[in-house]
């Protein structure tokens, strides 16, 4: 099997974050500040990534702006030749710091949206005053001229705000909006009853996105992650395991995706111990579900196996206890009908959710 170099790397600089969104993509076991990689190690990882073929770097977290060396990290990333994107809630950014990031060569900002008004956004993010701060940050981003993507994570409690989220993206001058229905891993799995959209909401979101895409063509690009529990086919997770991207966790663990640690038995390497190139091409975790040889039926003989690669390994693990199983969001999975019934039951669940904990 020939393995292509990765295009994108997600650098999770820290797990620290002022927000406590119940769908946080960080693992339930958060890495402490004293275990985070230092500036020089990250700079070396960026150079190794560029040498390996990475073109797009996403600086993420946690909240990456809690790293005091963020500006230096952006300088290092640009010196390595990487297109550098900051994924942030905006909390902790000042106009002065944004100007420093501008001078450092930051290419693009992706700003998260927890809700379209303070009441919703501050309740979901668990941070009073967060929405107002975010609106300030959005204005400064526009004034400086950074290209902007708005990233709206949607679930049962805020899906009715989707039309307003799209309007806000246009008003802010964003070129893109990511409309991402919450994915159920880690923290989100703990609050599945509170977050699962109803089937009607999922279909309505499909229609709103389709209408807005046509109306806003050339103004706003809409990337959409539909509610997969209510879909017929699974998502093409990570563009295919070990084909396109890699994640580096705050403590240097290199992961094929942000939830890969939920799969028992996978062995991960650290950037402190092994060159990134070796980890990508030879690491056991990256080779575990690469290509199609690992697939059992019904994936092995499926005509869609190169389209979605059997869906999400972590979701298969979480829902049916086998990471090599067909993602049960697929209609060909023997567990699909049961999952859809369970999804409807979750969507009728209680609205109280579990907020993410703080990282030490």
């Amino acid at each position, binding site marked *: 099997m020939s393995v292509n170099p990765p295009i994108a790397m997600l650098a999770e600089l820290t797990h620290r974050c002022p927000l406590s969104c119940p769908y946080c993509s960080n693992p339930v076991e958060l890495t402490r500040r004293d275990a985070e990689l230092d500036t020089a190690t990250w700079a070396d990882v960026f150079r190794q990534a560029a040498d390996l073929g990475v073109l797009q770097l996403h600086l993420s977290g946690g909240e990456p702006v809690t790293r005091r060396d963020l500006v230096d990290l952006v300088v290092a990333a640009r010196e390595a030749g990487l*297109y550098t994107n900051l994924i942030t809630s905006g909390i902790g950014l000042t106009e002065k710091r944004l100007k420093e990031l501008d001078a450092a060569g930051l*290419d693009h900002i992706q700003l998260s949206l927890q809700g379209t008004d303070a009441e919703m956004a501050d309740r979901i993010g668990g941070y009073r005053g967060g929405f107002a701060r975010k609106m300030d940050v959005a204005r400064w981003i526009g004034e400086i001229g950074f290209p902007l993507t708005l990233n709206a994570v949607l679930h049962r409690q805020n899906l009715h705000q989707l039309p307003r989220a799209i309007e806000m993206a246009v008003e802010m001058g964003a070129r893109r909006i990511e409309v991402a229905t919450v994915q159920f891993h880690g923290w989100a799995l703990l609050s599945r009853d509170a977050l699962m959209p109803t089937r009607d909401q999922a279909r309505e979101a499909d229609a709103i996105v389709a209408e807005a895409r046509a109306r806003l063509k050339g103004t706003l*690009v809409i990337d959409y992650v539909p509610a997969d529990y209510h879909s017929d086919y699974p998502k093409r997770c990570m563009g295919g395991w070990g084909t396109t991207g890699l994640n580096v966790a705050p403590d240097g663990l290199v992961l094929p995706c942000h939830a890969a640690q939920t799969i028992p038995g996978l062995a991960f390497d650290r950037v402190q111990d092994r060159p990134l190139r070796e980890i990508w091409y030879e690491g056991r975790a990256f080779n575990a579900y690469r290509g199609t040889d690992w697939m059992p039926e019904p994936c092995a003989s499926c005509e869609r196996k190169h389209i979605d690669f059997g869906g999400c390994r972590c979701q298969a693990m979480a829902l049916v206890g086998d990471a090599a199983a067909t993602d049960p969001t697929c209609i060909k999975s023997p567990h699909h009908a049961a999952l859809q019934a369970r999804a409807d039951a979750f969507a009728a669940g209680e609205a109280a959710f579990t907020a993410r904990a703080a990282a030490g």
Partner: protein
Amino acid sequence: MIGADDIPVIPRGVRMQFDRVRDRWVLLAPERTVALDEIGRAILSEIDGARSFGQITARLAATYAAPEDQIAEDSRGFLGTLIDRRFLEVK
């Protein structure tokens, strides 16, 4: 659709870069990478924020000794796709 008098502009956050690992030119944009063939690179290299689309296609026709109508049609399709994806603007 881009007209002869329109001036295409590559906006902030979009740039051409040589991809030394894959030995090709790419257009880097927010969270997207577009591989460029020789023609795509030639068209984008003509964009300087001052030349109109008509001037660009005339220059390309001269450089490649090709019919200008054909060049304009191909370029219009290519640049139109980039405009729809917000990788290119016109003024």
